[in-house]
């Protein structure tokens, strides 16, 4: 089962505010993950994203639920730039996790 969150409908074409991303992650995405549903973040129409937003939403998800990278999350309709930015956010979360373990 999958739940799709269409990001441009909530935040517009520019994902900018990390605080908003944090609220969204905590109140909507993480509850879905904890029920075992595969989360789909749909980037259709999204053209740019700040690091604050990416780290709060994607980084936060990966940091709190590292297991989602094994089939629990999908990033849909990413253009090449968004693909790079999503990948960066995931790698930052991994880096942060390693720093905390160390």
């Amino acid at each position, binding site marked *: 089962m999958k739940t799709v969150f269409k990001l441009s409908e909530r935040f517009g074409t520019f994902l900018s505010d990390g605080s908003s991303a*944090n609220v969204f992650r905590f109140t909507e995405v993480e509850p879905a993950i904890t029920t075992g549903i595969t989360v789909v973040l749909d980037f259709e129409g999204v053209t*740019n994203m700040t690091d604050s937003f990416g780290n709060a939403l994607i980084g936060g998800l990966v940091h709190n639920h590292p297991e989602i990278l094994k089939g629990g999350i999908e990033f849909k309709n990413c253009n090449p730039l968004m693909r790079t930015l999503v990948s960066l956010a995931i790698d930052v979360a991994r880096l942060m996790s390693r720093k905390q373990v160390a």
Partner: protein
Amino acid sequence: MVIVLPASVFEDDLPNFLATIWHPVEGETLSFDFSRVVFYIPAAVTMLIARIDHARRVGLPGELLGLKECKSFGYLQRIDFFDQLGIALPEAFERHDSGTAFVPLREVVPEPVSLRDDPLSSELAKCVANADSGDVYLLSQYSLGEIIANLKQHACERGFVCAQYTPKSDLVRIGLADSGIGIRQSFRDGGAPKYREEMSDSQVLELAMSLWGSSKAHRVGAYGGSQNRGVGLTITRFMVAESYGHFFIASGRAWWFRDGLKPPVSGVFSNACVQGTVLSLGYQRHHVTDYSKLRAQAWESLGLTKPQTDNTLFT
């Protein structure tokens, strides 16, 4: 006390300008003399309005003098400088849509976290890029998004943002200033683990610009873990430098400036203290050629190798 404002303020003049407008107030009034003012870059405009806004907020009586003689009076009216201060002045011109020539000075208000789109960064970026796509647009949108979010999160008072493109020099200029609690107090209030009370203002400034330097990066709030990794300012600073642009920041008694890839310069105000935080950044459009590469390079420079993420995550 009357502060006589200088005729022009460019990037190199910002420390002296701040020292002038944030000079300790002598007497019980504070007025500003605009009679010599001709040209200020956007950052200087935001710094000035934030200073006047602060004086009015703390109840310091004073006047804005010399407006009739001020050569940029019409321009200041046109960008809503006086309107934002709640001062209604008759206008000797008819207002037209500015198109992408400039965007009026905008107020940035600290607000509780919300789930909504904030179009301000995109609107300003469109103005300076004269387009709503492309590398200059994306870099401007990113920079504005990060610094506006910082102000909303940390200032605790309203601030102002202004952006302009100057065709002759091909320069995109962005300015943002508030007269809120400033960086040191934000670190104090946030209980930032790396902050020490004995740090100088220059050290506090360096900490704010460092990776993971956010005053709130460690906090667990109402919405779970950290909402801020403290990277936005660092990445912005890197991308501006790689685009041979300038980056200026000041708060408290310290300022820091870097012009392109030259070594940064910094200093301390001997007899002034900037209430809040001020930022100026700029770059020439023709130097901004590959936004995606800039973002990746910024992270590589901070110790993160090229993204290694599994492609099966993308559908």
